[in-house]
């Protein structure tokens, strides 16, 4: 790849060619402003694209595009910017797939609502946050949950976890990686409400 920067050692100071923002600045913006939009964004993508199995790839596309742009300049309204990007990507995809993007045009009303409605940004207390994380734990598979609990609550090492559970360290690592992935999906991707 031609444009890989050579200042990769210090992640916090990593600057990309032609960018004014550091990776740390973009990351903080992404975590603070973009990730909380994920449930609404996923809903928007699934609603506007027939094949919902593509949604995760499209979500990645949106993230890539908004972060590319954020390296140049952070947008004023993150929510509007994220949803505009998502809509443009949907239209692009529809063209490539030779689908007439009529549904997307029809859905502009819903788009306006999604792009402007506040809500996900509501700040939550430390206690509420702990409850959310605690509840998220319960949605992991039992063994995965056990490993994450031992690592995060008890704070013990992989070797100790392996000994305790009678499994190999490699298996502990697999459960942890799986847990990390699932927790991100639960905490960002899925609606936090468990009951209808």
């Amino acid at each position: 790849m031609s444009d890989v920067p050579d200042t990769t050692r210090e992640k916090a100071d990593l600057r990309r060619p032609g960018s004014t923002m550091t990776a740390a600045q973009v990351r903080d913006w992404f975590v603070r402003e973009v990730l909380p939009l994920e449930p609404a964004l996923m809903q928007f993508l699934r609603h506007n694209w027939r094949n919902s199995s593509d949604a995760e790839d499209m979500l990645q596309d949106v993230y890539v595009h908004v972060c590319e742009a954020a390296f140049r300049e952070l947008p004023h309204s993150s929510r509007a910017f994220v949803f505009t990007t998502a809509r443009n990507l949907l239209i692009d995809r529809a063209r490539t797939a030779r689908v007439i993007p009529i549904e997307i045009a029809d859905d502009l009303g819903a788009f306006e609502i999604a792009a402007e409605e506040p809500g996900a940004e509501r700040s939550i207390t430390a206690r509420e946050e702990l409850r959310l994380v605690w509840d998220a734990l319960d949605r992991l598979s039992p063994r995965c949950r056990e490993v994450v609990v031992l690592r995060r609550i008890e704070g013990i090492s992989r070797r100790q976890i392996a000994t305790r559970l009678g499994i190999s360290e490699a298996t502990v690592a697999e459960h942890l990686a799986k847990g990390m992935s699932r927790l991100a999906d639960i905490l960002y991707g899925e609606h936090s409400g468990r009951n209808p």
Partner: protein
Amino acid sequence: MSEAHSNEMVSAAAIKARAAAWLERRDRADWSEADQAVLDAWLAESMAHMTAYWRLDAAWARTERLAALRSPSGEVMSSRGRLSIPPLVIGIAAALAILVVLGAGTLLLLRPEERTYATAVGGHESVAFEDGSKIELNTDTILRARMTTRERIVWLDKGEAYFQVRHDPSHPFVVMVGDRRITDLGTQFVIHRGVRKLEVAVLEGRVWLDAPDRQSSAQNSFLTTGEVATVSAEKISVTKKNVHDIANGLAWRHGVLVFKHKPLAEVAQEFNRYNTRKIVITDDAIGNLKIYGTFRTEDVDLFARVIQVAYRLNVETGENRIVISR
């Protein structure tokens, strides 16, 4: 941007899996600067790598809060070595659950061919019989069994037990709980005897519930899959339950308690069955607070910390009791 498209052939799911593998390595104690350099290079390869990693990293950082639940003494949650929790429903695919709760104090009249099995508070025992049947005793349980070539009778004198019965129509498997009789008509079941009432829950199969010494047919009932009978001195009331909920009630077989929005008062009562340190709730109003969570049966301390930290209640931890108040 060219980078945005360079990864188009790699699925988001595949990138996410790689990002998770990186994050897992990053979490290890032996993470080095050289490792960091390789990770940085991977991140710099594409924006898709970067956003996937940031996303997982941010979620994992949020779980740091869980350390607030760590026991202050630093001791581990459980002295028990291993815990395995097989999927509850699979393990009891053809099971039939009977929960028995009745008045305590039953005279034990032992006969030569009878054997007595018992567990202490917090105990859990499994007994296999020659006919292929199996009984699991939960905490604080006493039962007697007479298993001969002619008859198979079990008396549940106290507590709760799960029965996995090798069905044999010519030798019915009978469980006596006080003057109540539960006859297996299928394959498996579980029984729990408590303080004032008897509960019979059927996971799969059929049982016949009656009181042979009484004349009233109102005391008789067939129970099938998913049915839970609550038996008092006067009547039997039967409700239909989700099999998953019944299976959750059997999580003790794997050393855990599973609560799905259960009132705090009932959760406390459950814990108290397994532990000598009793939970006391001083305020009736908080007894209705709904609790969600999975705990090991002996994890009363972790439970207390969750109540304190996540539910914002006062918890006083003493040697013999844990007092929860508003």
